[in-house]
């Protein structure tokens, strides 16, 4: 569905922000891109949607080479959430903002259908529809931007730091919405994220970047347990994973609070029985 082959990219002459990156993403995957600030994550996701064209190598999305096709034609199938929501919002009310995407990419959709779809999303996000996006708080604007991506129901969603600036409740709500689309509709999700707990709870596969290179590509759990790799990429694994690794025997692969609790309970039972 998405494939990068030996892709390199530089913003100016001689600079190389992304170097020789290759990976494939299949339909229905939930992939997180991890890395320190300036590692080239945003650049990589922009390359995926063809907002940037590779200087070397080839990017294919939905079977089309991004160098030969236009981004606007892809908008129906690929949704993109930008790191800064203010660059994306362009209408004066939330309702118009959510309808905008459908109006531009689904020209055959009737007004009633558009209104119905917008209504559904507004209800799920708890918007009344008459809010002015630019007078909302930063976290709410972020949610408006995400809601407008979701309204279109794209087959691929590319999300650049969707949870940054959100409080805990807002964060888990949008992640649940995204995860729900991924599970029920098979939406492919590629997400840049700095919150390792979120990555652990929702993503299944992680790409780790540093200095414009792809350091690792594997399951989220295996990546977080690779201490050397995490150090190289200046990342910190979730605390539960860290704890599980320190405790060692009996606590292996306990990466969530639920798993860890279960292990601790059973360990305590064993000890009580032994006493």
């Amino acid at each position, binding site marked *: 569905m998405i494939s990068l082959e030996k892709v390199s990219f530089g913003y100016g002459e001689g600079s190389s922000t992304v170097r020789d990156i290759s990976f494939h993403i299949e339909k229905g995957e939930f992939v997180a891109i991890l890395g320190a600030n300036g590692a080239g994550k945003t650049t990589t996701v922009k390359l995926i949607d063809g907002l940037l064209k590779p200087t070397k190598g080839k990017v294919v999305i939905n079977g089309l080479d991004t160098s030969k096709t*236009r981004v*606007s034609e892809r908008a129906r199938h690929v*949704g993109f959430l*930008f790191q800064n929501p*203010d660059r994306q919002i*362009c209408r004066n009310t939330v309702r118009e903002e959510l309808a905008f995407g459908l109006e531009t990419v689904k020209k055959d959709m009737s007004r009633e259908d558009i209104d119905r779809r917008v209504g559904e999303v507004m209800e799920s996000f708890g918007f009344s529809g008459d809010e002015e996006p630019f007078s909302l708080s930063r976290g709410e604007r972020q949610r408006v931007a995400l809601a*407008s991506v979701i309204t279109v129901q794209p087959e691929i969603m590319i999300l650049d730091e969707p949870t940054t600036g959100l409080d805990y409740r807002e964060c888990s709500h949008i992640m649940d919405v995204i995860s729900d689309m991924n599970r029920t509709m098979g939406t492919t999700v590629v997400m840049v994220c700095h919150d390792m707990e979120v990555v652990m709870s929702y993503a299944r596969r992680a790409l780790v970047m540093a200095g414009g290179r792809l350091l690792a590509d594997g399951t989220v759990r295996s990546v977080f347990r690779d201490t050397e790799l995490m150090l190289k990429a200046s990342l910190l694994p979730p605390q539960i994973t860290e704890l599980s690794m320190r405790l060692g025997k009996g606590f292996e692969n306990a990466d969530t609070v639920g798993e860890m609790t279960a292990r601790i309970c059973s360990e305590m039972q064993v000890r009580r029985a032994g006493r």
Partner: protein
Amino acid sequence: MKDLFQYTAGNSVIHRMNPLTKILLAVCICAAGFISDNIFYLLFLLLLDMMIGLAAGVFKKALSILKGLLKVSIFLFILQVLFVRRGTPVFWIITDEGLMLAAKVVLRLIIACIPLALMLAVTQISDLANALVQVLHLPYKYAFTLTTSIRFIPQFMEEMGDIMEAQTARGVEFDTKNGLKKIGLVLPLCVPLLISSVRRTDATAVAAEVRGFELRTTKSGFKKYPFRLIDLAAFLICAALIAGAVLL
């Protein structure tokens, strides 16, 4: 275009001049270009522009501005050549006088554009503003407005690019090859751009006020901007340039 207003650090003769001298020099070159009607003098001024670029270590920038002006220049040149009916025909409807006039117009355009851009490239805007306040006793409020607005230009352009990118990703055809269509699409973008700039202006104003903006006087600011020997030399050059333009 984005880096047009970006400061290029250095320690050249030009860098060391008083900010006001630099601007005066640039203005004098422009003025000389408009006053003079001698094609050789105009060519000399163009050469001078490039030499200043070389001396200030921003020759590359000078060349890139020249390249940027190329399209407009050619367009202007053709227009002039086609519309001037005087003189003896050289070829088809083109006359010798038309060619000469066209060359002068184009040269003037270039001469007027390059020096100001180059001076801005080697002057920190804050220095210019401070010098305006200290030497010419311009109220700080206006100097601040000047520096802030110039500083925002590259940001503004970057924002514009970002917004266009986001709209393209949402299915608006900014990646069309049809230029006219693109212009029509740009208009609705003014909304977010305007809102974000108003908001930023607000934030800047509040930040300035919180930091005691109202208390500044012409004596605030620790850097001083005296006129030195180089500045004197530059003044003489300025006078010579204008005199040359009038006399030649």
